[in-house]
């Protein structure tokens, strides 16, 4: 099978670039919409005009982010049709329903109530305006639900059956797809990460106000009270959803889990590496040490994965070479079965073409027997099942460290806001301000863990990335890669400049415009 790996790599790079840039805009839409809704709720219930000023300012920044980020995700759909035609066709039936619901809901909820949110002040009642603001927040978050359900299915394909006639995965149970544990955890973990990013955004900018202009004290304190409370609750929740996500990964994507922890050899009572530097020379199958330095939490990985102190957690080598003692099949054996599935699929189609129904029936039976190994049939080397360990390991550990920092930051900022000591705490105000990009960074790291960690699969165990691509010119993918890099950078510069102008204006005591 001839595959142009440079085409695969450029297609991957382009998709990664698009997704990374797109996800700079998404977290603020998810979280800031709720923060604004909470602020407006306080305004409506107290009637205090100062809360209206607070609401209007953050709503304006939400609007800027929404306008500039709007439709940046659509590019990924363009890429599906052009660069990933095999994948699009293969998953079409599964993705069709969630994405159609997403499109309709997003259009009606956001376009209708978004207008009321921005144009409706003094035109509709306070309560109707408030309802609209909440509906924009709920609508934006529900849009994310459908996308993440689709992504969760790729990580753990359930509720479907591959139809050799149509060459598509067809939905058998909608509810299995929706309530796929991987999708549910992914949704909750991703949106709560977006909420934290937004909380940090508000706390960081409010800290800037406090550092620049003492007259902004009341405005900043009100903003921090709401954002830090929201951020503290969602940080705690995010840690819980992170735990359930890890539990799901242990069972559904154990190779990813082993890469996240740099675990090459399986262990009973496996530790979690709290801090570690991987041995860069380490490879699967050699006897070199996994880490140059490692500080570990004893048995924590076994507890996390199986809620047992001495549970066996398989390492990368267990999956590559197999471990009969623990019933783990080797990748080589799976590859052999996968090749049988692919050959049976081919035989089925040829028999159908020749109208040889008995042969077609036998081929289909053979295919069904090995169907779950289908994706392995495209691999040549058992080690291909191992993702890039350093990228996954460091991304995961940085994300976790940042998650803990966000919890501490929100706790301290809330405490200081409540005790009235905020304005005097210059160090914490500076720390909060410089944490602004960290929320975005943590989101991207999370996606890197999720997506690089599941390599080589586009659809777990069924379709490798290298087979998912379309056979098109590498040059055209390269050209559009740089084109997107330019357009997205331009949009990001526009977002930062427009927001910075509004923030500076506000810091000088300016009013909402």
């Amino acid at each position, binding site marked *: 099978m*001839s595959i142009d790996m440079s085409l695969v790599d450029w297609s991957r790079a382009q998709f990664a670039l698009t997704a990374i840039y797109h996800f700079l805009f998404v977290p603020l839409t998810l979280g800031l919409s709720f923060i604004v809704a909470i602020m407006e709720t306080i305004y409506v219930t107290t009637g205090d005009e100062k809360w209206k000023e607070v609401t209007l300012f953050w709503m304006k920044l939400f609007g*800027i982010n929404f306008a500039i980020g709007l439709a940046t995700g659509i590019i990924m759909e363009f890429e599906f049709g052009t660069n990933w035609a095999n994948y699009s066709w293969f998953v079409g039936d599964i993705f069709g329903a969630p994405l159609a619901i997403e499109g309709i809901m997003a259009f009606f909820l956001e376009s209708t109530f978004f207008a009321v949110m921005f144009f409706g002040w003094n035109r509709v009642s306070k309560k109707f305006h408030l309802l609209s603001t909440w509906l924009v927040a709920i609508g934006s978050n529900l849009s994310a639900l459908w996308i993440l359900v689709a992504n969760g299915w790729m990580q753990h394909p359930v509720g479907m059956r591959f139809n050799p006639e149509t060459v598509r995965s067809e939905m058998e149970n909608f509810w299995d797809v929706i309530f796929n544990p991987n999708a549910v955890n992914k949704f909750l973990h991703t949106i709560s990460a977006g909420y934290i990013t937004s909380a940090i955004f508000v706390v960081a900018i409010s800290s800037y106000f406090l550092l620049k202009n003492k007259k902004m004290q009341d405005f900043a304190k009100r903003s921090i009270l709401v954002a830090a409370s929201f951020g503290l609750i969602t940080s705690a929740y995010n840690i819980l959803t992170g735990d359930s996500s890890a539990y799901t990964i242990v069972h559904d994507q154990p190779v990813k889990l082993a890469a996240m922890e740099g675990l090459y050899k399986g262990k009973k009572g496996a530790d979690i590496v709290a801090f570690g530097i991987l041995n860069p020379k380490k490879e699967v199958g050699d006897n070199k040490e996994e880490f140059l330095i490692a500080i570990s939490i004893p048995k924590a990985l076994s507890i996390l994965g199986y809620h047992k102190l001495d549970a066996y957690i398989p390492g990368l080598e267990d999956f590559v070479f197999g471990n009969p003692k623990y019933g783990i099949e080797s990748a080589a054996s799976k590859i052999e079965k996968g090749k049988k599935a692919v050959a049976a*699929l081919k035989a089925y189609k040829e028999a159908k073409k020749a109208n040889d129904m008995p042969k077609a029936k036998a081929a289909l039976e053979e295919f069904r027997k090995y169907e779950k190994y289908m994706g392995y049939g495209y691999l040549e080397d058992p080690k291909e099942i191992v993702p890039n360990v350093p990228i996954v390991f460091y991304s995961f550990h940085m994300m976790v460290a940042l998650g803990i920092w966000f919890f501490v930051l929100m706790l301290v900022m809330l405490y200081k806001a409540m005790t009235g000591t905020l304005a005097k705490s210059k160090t914490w105000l500076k720390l909060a301000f410089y944490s602004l990009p960290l929320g975005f960074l943590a989101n991207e790291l999370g996606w890197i863990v999720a997506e690089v960690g599941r390599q080589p699969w586009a659809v777990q165990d069924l379709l490798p990335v290298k087979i998912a691509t379309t056979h098109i010119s590498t040059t055209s993918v390269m050209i559009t890669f740089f084109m997107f890099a330019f357009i997205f950078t331009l949009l990001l510069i526009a977002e930062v400049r427009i927001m910075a102008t509004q923030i500076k204006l506000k810091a000088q005591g300016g009013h909402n415009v």
Partner: protein
Amino acid sequence: MKVKAFFNMYIEGFRNMGKLGKKLWAIIIIKFIVLFVVIKMLFFPDILHERFHSDKERADYVLQNLTGGKK
């Protein structure tokens, strides 16, 4: 809220829009033109719909890629 008042909200909202709002709308419109007219039409055809006329042909093409190497 009456239908007329609802549409008036849009009309007056756009009419009384501040400098920032106009700038954002300009960005949205330019972005949509670049994305949907230039990029989508010139660089991102839907390969399977462009090359084939029926779902059967598309399925055969993908099956060929899945079983016998890429065309």
